[in-house]
């Protein structure tokens, strides 16, 4: 721990207001998402707690019929916007984090394997990566989503949507990790500490996990952070396009899709607040990733 507190990375963090603020914002949003049921004033998905009469209440103004007031207003069905955002954030973050984890696990595994083993293994993995990279990840995610939708029976589609999203975004994003890890592995593999471990007689698996993996983690961390922002945006985009989280389990993207319909009729808050939440979240994570990349790559300073 002391080693960390004294490190250059921590020093760079301490002296960067942008990094501190974006970390705080990110942590607050994660906490808000995790404890959404405790913070939210109502459960927006419990029909019992909804009152259609409360529909379209503007923020901080009492409703014309019921007299109830809502911090960020309500949507067409009288759901409290603040609460829907908290629950939406929960789904957005969950999908984002899970998708990045999936991509990371696949990417690290295949990247290490192709970098260390080489030969045909490498050729096959990296050709596959090249082919996939030819297509933008959002398109790959859409295709996976479309196919998955095709093979799931209609009655399960809404339930499965979240998992399909994670799978789609995760599978569309592994290439980044694999390429970075492979590149770093090739560099590390040629270093003499790996030769020393081979000379001791360590097995390839041990060398990959104990020696190489810890040394390729810092670029992975950077990619993971940036990927998280991208995954959150990808999820929002898919949901906005109507090929993501369903209305029964709305993510921030779904909320924006719903809100878009009311923008032109004057109920701006239904769109604006989810959109701002999404922007702030993506920005904070992006800033963090950007800062991490500079901090972990001393040559840039």
């Amino acid at each position, binding site marked *: 721990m002391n080693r960390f507190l004294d490190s250059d990375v921590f020093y760079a963090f301490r002296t960067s207001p942008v990094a501190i603020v974006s970390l705080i914002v990110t942590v607050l949003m994660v906490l808000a998402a995790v404890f959404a049921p405790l913070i939210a004033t109502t459960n927006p998905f419990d029909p019992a707690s909804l009152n259609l009469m409360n529909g379209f209440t503007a923020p901080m103004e009492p409703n014309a019929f019921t007299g109830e007031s809502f911090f960020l207003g309500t949507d067409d069905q009288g759901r409290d916007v603040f609460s829907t955002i908290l629950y939406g954030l929960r789904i957005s973050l969950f999908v984002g984090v899970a998708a990045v984890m999936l991509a990371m696990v696949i990417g690290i595994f295949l990247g290490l394997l192709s970098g260390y083993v080489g030969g045909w293994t490498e050729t096959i993995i990296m050709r596959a990566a090249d082919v996939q990279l030819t297509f933008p990840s959002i398109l790959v995610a859409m295709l996976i989503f479309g196919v998955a939708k095709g093979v799931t029976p209609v009655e399960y589609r809404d339930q499965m949507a979240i998992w399909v999203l994670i799978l789609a975004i995760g599978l569309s994003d592994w290439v980044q990790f694999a390429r970075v890890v492979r590149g770093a592995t090739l560099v590390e593999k040629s270093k003499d500490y790996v*030769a*020393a471990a081979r000379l001791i007689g360590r097995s390839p698996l041990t060398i990959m996990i104990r020696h190489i993996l810890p040394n390729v983690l810092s670029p992975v961390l950077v990619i993971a952070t940036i990927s998280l922002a991208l995954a959150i945006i990808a999820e929002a985009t898919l949901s906005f396009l109507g090929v993501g989280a369903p209305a029964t389990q709305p993510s921030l993207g779904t909320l924006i899709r719903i809100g878009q319909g009311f923008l032109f009729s004057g109920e701006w808050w239904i769109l604006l607040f989810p959109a701002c939440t999404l922007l702030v979240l993506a920005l904070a994570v992006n800033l963090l990733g950007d800062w991490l990349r500079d901090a972990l790559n001393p040559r840039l300073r």
Partner: protein
Amino acid sequence: MTEPVLSIRNLTVEIPTRRGLFKPVQGVSYDIRPGEIRGVVGESGAGKSMTGNAVIGLLDPPARVSEGEIWLNGRRIDQLDAEQKRRIRGGEIAMIFQDPLTSLNPLFTVGEQLVETIQLHLGLSSSEAQSRAIALLDRVRIPNPEERFHQYPHQFSGGMRQRVVIALALCSEPSVIVADEPTTALDVSIQAQVLDLIKELARERQVGVILVTHDMGVIADTTDEVTVMYEGRVVEQGTTSQILGAPTHEYTKSLIAAVPRPQVKLHRFPQVSYGGRETAFKIEDLARNWDRSTASKSGTLVEVKGLTKRFLAKGAILPSQRSYFTAVDDVSFDIKDGEVFGLVGESGSGKSTVARMLATLYPVDGGTVTFDGEEVTGMDAKQLSAYRKQIQMIFQDPFSSLNPRMSVGDIVAEPLVHHKLLSRAEIGPRVRELLDRVGLASDAYRKYPHEFSGGQRQRISIARALATQPRFLICDEPTSALDVSIQAQILNILKDLQEHLGLTMLFISHDLPVVRQMCDRVGVMRQGKLVEVQETSALFEAPKSDYTRELLDLMPRLEQLSEEQIAELRT
């Protein structure tokens, strides 16, 4: 005596850092006269390159000149603005960098880069500039300059590229050239040619040269005047013969003494004692528990027969279309029990490849390796494991041979853990003992590699190599990345390993004086082939092959060393 072209007075460079103001150069003063070569020598971190960068106005921010003056041809230049400095740069002062492979823009032809520079400084028409460029290429002895003019940098070899860099530096007819380690990245034979060229051009064009180097041999061969730097300060300066022949400062004395000599074999390497750099080590204490019962039956520990290694040069799907590069070609030698066997050669001669094949890091393409009567090349996994326990390796680059994410304790313990040689409880004390014996403080155990200097890291490598009590140690250029003072300590440890523990060693080096000091017998390699094998003294005194003779001739020497000094060193 002529007026100096360049005068540096009391120059101080400072870098503001997180932990306070750091002054890599403090109060440095020296002069350069036309046609004179001044060597600036010192170990890494002595501030010698920083001085050169300050002169040419290329300090990387936040480094800045905080005190002192720089005068060029009677004009003060350290206070000029950026634009005026730029005009001087490459005009009156030119620069040559260390690595010729990265100094040239890969996307422009050599000619384009020359013409561009000539036109900038001399304002010639493009056809005039072109003929001048070709003349310059010819002057730096590049064959077929007309043809070479249109080629790209990647079509030139390292030495040729450094010649192009020199030609580029000469474009503007400068009065001073700053050459920062211009030959460090080159082989000995090419180094000699490039240094000769610099010497010749300095005389011919009356250019003052600042030659920054860490190599005393280069200083002795090339320079007229020498400035010795230590931790940012000038400790001593004077003519080359004076500094090398009769140094007055303690640091200079020990630095010169520490340079390995090819003339005579000493029992120990003289160490640089100045500045408290010496660290004690106690290899003899390891001898008590060292298992020496396994002397080989025949007296020969390692036998190499017809060893061959080919690398794929051009890949193709059809095997018939592939072309191979033979890195090691039918090499045979044997190493006696307890002997230090040296392999010398220039880069690309295949000496490291031989080492890696012996260490089972590369598969063997042809020939056999026999260790203590057993053929290594045909061993199964279990036999290989037993073999690996008995051999260990010390690598060239101390910064890449230790895993930066593992603690030093874990690094040294890894062979013990893997081979299950000791119980869990015994490993800790054993590792601490090893670290202590190679001269590391007791708190090293919990630290990480980045907290250590190059020399200390090399000690950690040695401790790791000793963990399994090996019989055979492969040293691949173990000190070529280290400063002279550190080199002496590491080599002395290695000498102790042979003397007290009876280790057999394969010692790989391009540095002939070091080989003379270290080895009992030496093999000379060239382009994958073993040219000759001899007793060390015989090789140095009566080389059999022309190639060895050539190498010995090109070897930089400290000729100024008198007989008395050698006698002094012997004692």
